[in-house]
């Protein structure tokens, strides 16, 4: 079991807070909109950053889900 981050691309407006706070987990496209890196898996060492990114997204576009 682990955590995954997911960016809702419909809600994302490119504030780029996630990429600033957790560049290991989020990348920006050529328009500056965010997406999770890879499948969004969060290594243990980055769990705090994942939740910090979620809490700082003004559009509430980031989900942190538990996966099995």
């Amino acid at each position, binding site marked *: 079991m682990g955590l995954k981050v997911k960016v809702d691309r419909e809600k994302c*407006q490119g504030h780029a807070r996630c990429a600033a706070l957790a560049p290991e987990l989020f990348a920006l496209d050529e328009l500056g909109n965010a997406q999770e890196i890879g499948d969004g898996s969060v290594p243990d060492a980055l769990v705090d950053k994942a939740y910090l990114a979620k809490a700082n997204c003004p559009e509430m576009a980031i989900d942190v889900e538990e996966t099995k």
Partner: protein
Amino acid sequence: MSARPPVNDWSTDFDHLDPRWIENPYPIWDELRDKCPIAHTERFRGVYFPSRYEDVRAVAYDTENFSSRRIIVRETPPPRIPAPPITSDPPEHRPAKNLLLPAFTPDAIKRHEAGMREICGKLIARFADKGGCDAAVDYAQEIPVRVIAVMLGLPEEEGGRFRKWIHEILEAGITRPDILMKAIGETEEYFRNEVAKRRAAPTDDLISQLAAAKIDGEPISEPHLLGAIRLILIAGIDTTWSAIGSCFWHLAQHPQDRKRLVNEPELIPTAVEEFLRAYAPVTMAREVIKDTTINGCPMKSGEMVLLSFPAANRDPKMFPDAERVVIDRKENRHAAFGLGIHRCIGSNLARLEITVALQEWLKRIPEFRLDPSAKVTWSEGTVRGPRKLPMLFG
């Protein structure tokens, strides 16, 4: 500023050009948020003022009932002055915005970082050993105009002319349509000329890129092109310098915060987010285009809504200790750059400018305070920042 009928009841007769609002709007907003969360006024031809974060967000997200075709509250009959995408509603909005976004991603604006540091260093060198300065006039106001000029490929020496247009369009023009329209005409003539120069000899600046841009395979129209260039010029200057100025206004009065940022410069980006929350410079507006309600409050078509992201940022329901500036605040989904589709295109640029302005100053002038013998004055209208910020060093 000419005398205005005084406000007796902010709930039914608010006036954002009232001297009390200009001097210190926060207590007025706090009281309204508590007692009359969606205030109204007949001034400016009828305007609503939501002050709760949830209501501001609801208006920002509702592009069906709240149009961006008018985004500045004015006293006079509104001319429609397009400046895509800020004045665009869906479906025109997205393609117009996508035209500009690539030039404003964090990677794209990073190219300007070295230039920004150089500008800041040169400005500081002019006053560092003079014992004091006006941090708004001598520093904050000088930075964004130069950065935007470089991006647009315009001479930095024209900064005075750009600032004049901004004042005329965003401040004086609120009550004087003649001043507004004259300024708009001047910007159009100026940019038409700049576009023509680049069509003859293309450069790699933003004006060249926009002049060559296409939407759905078609070049953009001249009104769209001139409006977009004017938008970048205006949006990129007044706003950012206001934010920079507010940071220094705060730090000049809070030695603990200042010392902490000097000793822990890695905290500066987090502090910048908190300054953006607490001192957000930009208030937008929308035109109500269909009778509707927000949170039970009926709003009439034809009136305007003052969309106060700064007031939303002070909502205690959203931000614990909302009235306190907490420079290491960890959870800070503030709305200084807006919410929804009209998120400020320049947000990454603004953040970098503010951060660099603070870093370069604090490295060289770690101790400063407000000059007790002089007065801080604030801008009026849609963008809030210190216009005069006299300081003493040490």
